[in-house]
């Protein structure tokens, strides 16, 4: 039975209903869809009104359907009921089949049922949704817990099996947990380590920034830091670690834990230290080496690095090469070790460092000396320490050294300057006779700079044939005839031009290069003399050649052998060669050292005592020397240049000539520049002469026309 009310009435009711309720719903339906739903519900309410036996159940179903359509807002219900109350009977009831009283009663009871159905459905829905969301929350929590457990397991595995030491401490520094690796590093049980506080883990070698950064981290001002840090192991040894500490914060960003990761770098560090030590120390003496010395020197001179002044003693052993050459390197090494020990005892104060920077070169660095005298005292002590002979391999060796001292304000110096100045000054001490110190002064430095430069270029010059020889004629005074020539070595320096022997012979002497250079001069001069003789220059008398012999050559063990070989090779009779040795070198030589000269003299080689009169020789000593000629120093002949000649000089030269002749020595004079002088000297009985009056030194081809 379809209701008798017109479909039109139901539609109008639904439209009114929709207008009142739709704004209060959260339905996903469109308004027409929702209105269609309401039309269906209106039909159900209409049917209930007209049922023969009234049953309010359809009202409950309508309330339930409204909730299902998301018409759930509390304010929706008054709208729903208000429209039913006002318009249900009007539009949806058939007055023929329903009395007004019965209609009002049924409409009221339907409203109660709609309310009950709505409330019941809403309660049910709320319970369902609450249960669903709670279950979802529980599921989510369980999933999170599971994921946490998994990540915890993963972290545990990392923590437990990591080769790194890992520890966690709270913000007071109390250690909460450490892994096995960390306990092992400290050489104790986990308990020993865990009972500690990180703040107690100090070590004297901690870098100052460690604890500053740790405090910053504990205040939450720093997220992490990394340092190399030492620890005391439980057995008292040192554990060096590469330490990384990180701050762990909670979700709100508050500092909660500190995480430390330690990598044991003890061995690596030890190896590094050993390598560094090897790289910076001299294997023989164990002293700091050249590179460490320069590092320290650079540090000291670096701008703003502290020390205001610096002192440096540059020490070089005198004649060390001779030791090596004559006694062998093993003995030389022993000597160096002994020297190093003695010097070390003198250079052990605070701010002092002794280094071996070359074969027999030592440097004492004095940082911030109280006075320049303090640096001089270091040098004095060093010389004193070396004064007692050193016993090496059963023999006593006398050690002598020359020291160059530099002292000055750090801000005015560079390391290269300091060292060059010290080096130059040391050479000066050596040139002054050695076994002494000299203090640097700018003037000597300037003079010596080119010497320094030349010294370094000598070997290349010898190889590169930059040396050549000039010859200065020697004239027989008796008749003015050419007797021979003195070979004078020159250096044709590519930058400085032609240098005389006074510029480089002392340097060659010092470096030992004089030996090969001297041998070359000897060969060259002997070859030249031979050529003159072959060509018959100088007439019937064979021309002689004079060659200078330095002190070092004098001591060279192969002097005799070498000389004889050169003469034989060229085919020059020994009597055509005269070796000139300075008076100073000759008189300081002992009998051993004179023996080679004696041997040569016995072979017929002439030996001239050069620069005679400058060495304060005991005239009585002349007898024991193997000399055949005296070469009178030019200082004696200078007084004879005047006219009339200085009477005192005349007497002296006369005396010397007489003495020489008594000892069967011939006399040669040097520096003859005027004819008056020449005449005087001839009258005084001098045998030979050389000087500009006769000829300047020149190339060998000019000799024939020289006189």
């Amino acid at each position, binding site marked *: 039975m379809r209701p008798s009310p017109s479909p039109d009435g139901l539609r109008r009711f639904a439209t009114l209903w929709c207008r009142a309720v739709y704004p209060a719903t959260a339905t*996903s339906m469109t308004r027409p869809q929702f209105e269609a739903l309401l039309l269906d519900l209106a039909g159900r309410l209409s049917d209930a009104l007209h049922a023969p036996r009234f049953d309010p159940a359809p009202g409950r179903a309508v309330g339930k359907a409204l909730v299902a359509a998301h018409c759930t807002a509390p304010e929706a219900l008054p709208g729903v009921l208000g429209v039913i109350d006002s318009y249900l009977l009007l539009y949806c009831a058939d007055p023929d089949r329903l009395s007004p009283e019965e209609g009002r009663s049924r409409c009221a009871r339907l409203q109660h049922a709609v309310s009950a159905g709505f409330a019941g459905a809403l309660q049910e829905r709320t319970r369902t949704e609450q249960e*669903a*969301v709670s279950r*979802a929350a529980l*599921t989510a929590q369980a999933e999170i817990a599971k994921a946490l457990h998994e*990540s915890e397991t993963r972290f545990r595995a990392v923590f437990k099996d990591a080769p790194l030491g890992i520890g966690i401490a709270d913000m007071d520094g109390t250690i909460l947990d450490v892994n096995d690796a960390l306990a092992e590093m400290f050489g104790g049980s986990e308990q020993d380590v865990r009972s500690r506080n990180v703040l107690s883990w100090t070590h004297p070698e901690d870098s100052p920034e460690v604890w500053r950064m740790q405090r910053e981290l504990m205040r939450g001002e720093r997220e992490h830091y990394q340092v190399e840090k030492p620890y005391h192991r439980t057995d008292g040894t040192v554990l060096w670690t590469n330490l990384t500490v990180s701050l762990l*914060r909670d979700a709100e960003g508050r500092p909660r834990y500190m995480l430390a990761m330690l990598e044991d770098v003890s061995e690596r560090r030890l190896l590094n230290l050993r390598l560094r030590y090897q790289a910076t120390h001299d294997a023989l003496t164990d002293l700091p080496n050249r590179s460490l010395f320069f590092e320290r020197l650079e540090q000291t001179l670096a701008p703003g690095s502290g020390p205001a002044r610096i002192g440096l003693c540059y020490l070089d052993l005198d004649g060390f090469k001779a030791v090596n050459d004559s006694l062998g390197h093993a003995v030389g090494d022993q000597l160096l070790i002994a020297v190093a020990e003695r010097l070390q005892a003198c250079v052990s104060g605070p701010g002092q460092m002794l280094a071996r920077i070359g074969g027999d070169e030592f440097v004492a660095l004095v940082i911030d000396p109280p006075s320049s005298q303090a640096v001089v005292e270091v040098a004095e002590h060093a010389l004193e320490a070396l004064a007692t002979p050193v016993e090496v391999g059963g023999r006593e060796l006398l050690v002598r050294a020359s020291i160059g001292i530099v002292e000055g304000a750090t801000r005015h110096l560079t390391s290269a300057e300091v060292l060059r100045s010290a080096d130059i000054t040391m050479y000066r001490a050596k040139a002054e006779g050695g076994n002494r110190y000299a203090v640097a002064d700018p003037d000597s430095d300037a003079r010596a700079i080119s010497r320094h430069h030349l010294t370094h270029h000598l070997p290349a010059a010898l190889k590169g044939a930059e040396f050549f020889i000039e010859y200065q004629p020697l004239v027989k005074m008796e008749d003015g005839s050419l007797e021979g020539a003195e070979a004078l070595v020159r250096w044709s320096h590519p930058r400085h031009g032609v240098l005389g022997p006074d510029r480089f012979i002392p340097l060659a002497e010092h470096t030992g290069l004089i030996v090969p250079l001297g041998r070359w001069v000897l060969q060259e001069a002997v070859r030249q003399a031979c050529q003159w003789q072959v060509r018959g220059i100088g007439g019937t008398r064979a021309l002689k050649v004079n060659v200078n012999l330095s002190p070092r050559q004098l001591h060279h063990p192969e002097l005799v052998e070498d000389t004889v070989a050169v003469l034989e090779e060229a085919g020059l009779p020994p009597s055509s060669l005269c070796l000139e040795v300075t008076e100073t070198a000759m008189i300081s030589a002992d009998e051993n050292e004179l023996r080679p000269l004696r041997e040569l003299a016995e072979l017929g080689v002439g030996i001239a005592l050069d620069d005679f009169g400058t060495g304060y020789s005991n005239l009585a000593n002349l007898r024991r020397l193997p000399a055949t000629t005296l070469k009178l120093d030019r200082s004696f002949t200078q007084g004879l240049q005047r006219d009339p000649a200085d009477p005192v000089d005349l007497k002296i030269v006369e005396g010397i000539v007489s003495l020489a002749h008594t000892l069967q020595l011939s006399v040669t004079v040097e520096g003859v520049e005027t004819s008056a002088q020449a005449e005087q000297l001839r009258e005084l009985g001098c045998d030979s002469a050389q000087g500009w009056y006769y000829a300047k030194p020149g190339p060998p081809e000019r000799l024939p026309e020289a006189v």
Partner: protein
Amino acid sequence: MERPAWAPPGMDLSVPSVSRMYDYYLGGSHNFEADRVAARRAMDAFPGIPKIAQANRAFMRRAVRYAISEGVTQFLDIGSGIPTFGNVHEVAGAASDAARVVYVDNDPVAVAHGRAVLDGDDRAEILHGDFLDPLPIVKSDPVHRLLDLDRPVALMLVALLHFFGDGDEPREKVATLRDALPAGSLLILSHASMDHAPATREQGAELERIYRDGGATFAMRSGEEIARFFDGFPLVAPGLVPMPDWRPESPSDQEDPNVYAGYAGVGRKA
């Protein structure tokens, strides 16, 4: 410190959740006391929030139907929230059997609930993901299983982007997602704005503050700023408009004026 990828997200039911607050606005009971307290504060401060939420849902449904009518049947709904009623998969599923939906939310409760709701449905899935880290979403198993990234996808960012300040670089994240999707893909987006809202600026500021108190962000943006999210997604008609004005299906004269507190638009990747 940033949470490593393998660490699980945390969960604290005493902190209001944006998605459960949204459920409360829609009259749902998928929420807890903390959510309700915060939602009530928001509703007191800013009138008509439930209506705005409904308007958003209505726009979403219209946009889904529009997408299907344009032949786009794959949906990636980021920030989907608690699945209540009239969801994307229901609307899309009703319109086309081919429809496939992947929901993404960062609320573990929403995700767990979504799994329960979608259990047994092989055309929709939900995954835990974060809009701020978009690439893992694109590379996730559910996306791989349900969506064919060689064919256009409708990317849905409905009522989501106002939960990110500019410091989160939401524009760049949208661009990342855009680059992962093929040409023809749609961006379905709605966003809160004070441009046409009857509420005062102060009320807007108060709403932002309430969300901030709950540990979230709420950022009103102007229509101009919102339009820039559509970089590379030219807008389809009627453009970026107040939510009720986007392709309405019935006359909108009876709408609550508060629903104008937001823009909606759909763009298509060229």
